[in-house]
């Protein structure tokens, strides 16, 4: 009986794992293999490092936000990464959002409040394309979930630029060469470089540090529920494990009556 139960659990697990394995088959395109990078937030017990998140947010604000939107994140969400309500009010007030119509029927601009979402840097996709050589900078709130390789891909992309395309590679005017982008030709010019940002906490802003921090910030933006989800999951798994063990003992006792 125990063997069968084990077989059943294995069958369930294997089918699930196998189902996922089949999907990996097309994950790699023609781009280079992603390098290994250490993260604190991955794995079963991983959590976001608050200092990394804050630095990453600074990189987002000072670099990414000039072209990319973050449409699913409101200023109030920054509470979750350790900013106080006062700090958030101050951060929001640095941005202008459109509101209205007022009593006269006119739209007007006002400083953003905590409940506002991060404003889009462009009025519409057409304006965004016009300012970016025809390419549309994608929204970043789900970027980490929307690319095969996730946060590893993001880090690799940000550090994977090459000033000159390799010999024989035809680079279209205005495009950049990147080892990890599909087709190796990317419309986004190299966004990060050493000392692109002066960190408020004094951390040395190397390219790797900047790319790491902003990747962590965007991983949070994509999955703000992640820490709570994992913590809840642990409780749920422990509960189910104990419940199942007890039920199994009861089952053995009940079935013993038959023999």
């Amino acid at each position, binding site marked *: *009986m125990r063997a*069968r*139960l084990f*077989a*059943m*659990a294995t*069958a*369930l*697990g294997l*089918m*699930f794992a*196998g*189902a*996922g394995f*089949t*999907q990996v*088959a*097309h994950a790699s*395109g023609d781009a280079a293999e992603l390098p290994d990078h250490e993260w604190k937030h991955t794995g*079963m017990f991983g959590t976001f490092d608050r200092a990394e998140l804050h630095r990453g947010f600074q990189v987002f604000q000072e670099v990414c936000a000039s072209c990319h939107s973050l449409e*699913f994140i409101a200023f109030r*969400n920054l509470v979750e990464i350790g900013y106080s309500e006062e700090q958030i009010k101050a951060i929001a007030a640095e941005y202008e959002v459109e509101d209205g119509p007022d009593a006269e029927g006119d739209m007007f601009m006002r400083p953003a409040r905590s409940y506002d979402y991060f404003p889009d840097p462009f009025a519409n996709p057409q304006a965004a394309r016009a300012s970016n050589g025809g390419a549309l900078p*994608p929204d970043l*709130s*789900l970027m980490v*979930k*929307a*690319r*095969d390789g*996730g946060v590893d891909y993001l880090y690799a992309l940000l550090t994977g630029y090459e000033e000159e395309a390799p010999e024989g590679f035809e680079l279209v005017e205005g495009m950049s060469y990147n080892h990890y982008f*599909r087709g190796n030709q990317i419309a986004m010019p190299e966004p990060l470089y050493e000392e692109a940002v002066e960190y408020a906490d004094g951390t040395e802003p190397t390219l790797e540090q900047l790319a790491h921090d902003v990747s962590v910030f965007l991983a949070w933006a*994509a999955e*703000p*529920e992640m820490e709570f*989800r*994992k913590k*809840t*999951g*642990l409780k*749920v*798994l422990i509960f*189910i*494990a104990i*419940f*199942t063990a007890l*039920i*199994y003992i*009861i*089952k053995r006792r*009940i*079935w013993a*009556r*038959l*023999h």
Partner: protein
Amino acid sequence: MTTPLHRYKIVQWIDYRLPIFSWSHEHLVVYPAPRNLNYWWNFGSLAGIMLVLQIVTGVILAMHFTAHVDYAFDSTEHIMRNVEWGWMMRYLHANGASMFFVVVYIHIFRGFYYGSYKSPREILWWMGVLILFLMMGSSFMGYVLPWGQMSFWAATVITNLVSAIPWIGETLVTWLWGGFSVDNPTLNRFYSLHYLLPFLLVGVVFLHLWALHHRKSNNPLGIDIKSSKDTIPFSPYYTVKDMVGLGVMLFVLAIFVFYLPNYLGETINYIKADPLVTPPHIVPEWYFLPYYAILRAVPDKLGGVIAMVASIAILFVLPWLDTCKVRSARFRPIYKQFFWIFLADCLVLGWVGANPPEGSFILIGRICTVYYFAHFLIILPLLGKFERTRPLPESIHQAVLAKKGGDDAGSGSPGETNAAGNP
């Protein structure tokens, strides 16, 4: 039927007018089940529980979801970010669909192995096949709802299959879409049907169980129940045994929901649907991959669609293709081998379906497709004619007791066991 609860006047009063108490007692408590059901028999009730879980989480998600091309993606993210426990509801629902299929596929292969589709359970089996069809329709339409890139393009590819039907195909597709491409009317009707189909499923599940309780469960020996010694009451024996399986299933589901919630999903479904950008690879969810491989194995579009539909519809006639009178593979040494080959064939089809149709995948896909149909149309009828089956045991309880006696030698004669299990 008098139940223990009949000592209460109110129960007697209700039961006299609407016999819910005696009915539940008859079907959930004293229902005589074969005493030798193994853990593979858990999967029927597990499938039922998954259906309930999908309906409960789905109803909650529907409270916050907006079925409109401009809002579907955003309202899904709203559920993930702003709705209390919304992320858990959505991850339960999305991974629950996969778990539902895992459980149902194991349930079906259990039926294959132990010959559960044979007389007198053909209609019970038909209801099962109908359930599979409804599940497929329901899960496909559900996958379209969040309106990501894969939602949109899967909807486009799959609905376009209908255009292969001669003469009326094109008109039919326009009618299905409610327009000239997959657009807002398509999303709306998929939402409506996605909410409807699970309740139809509940109805068919009821018929499935009705037929089951009328002719009683098959069992690992595949022989009929001959006396009350062969059975034990469903409660407490199988309620508690099913709960063990439930615990194991929920544990596996929880691992995915809390730690690998997007492992089975497609990353590009986190990109808003864009009719102007076709993704490089359009793949269905894992549970459709074998059918997808069969579809692509046939070089002709209409032929592919027919083969794909036939791959499931053939199950309707399985009870007559397998002419062997012995049900369980335990007593069919050759069928047992072919069962495992067939299972491997289905897994390889799934693997082929996940890969682009190029190079050796085309050839492997075609061989496996031919074998898939040959299993039903050639191997099973021939086995019925030529296979020499092993002798069947006299009865369920004799087989069980013989095994017990062998297992714990010296535990005394087990002959006096109270088979009914009731004092």
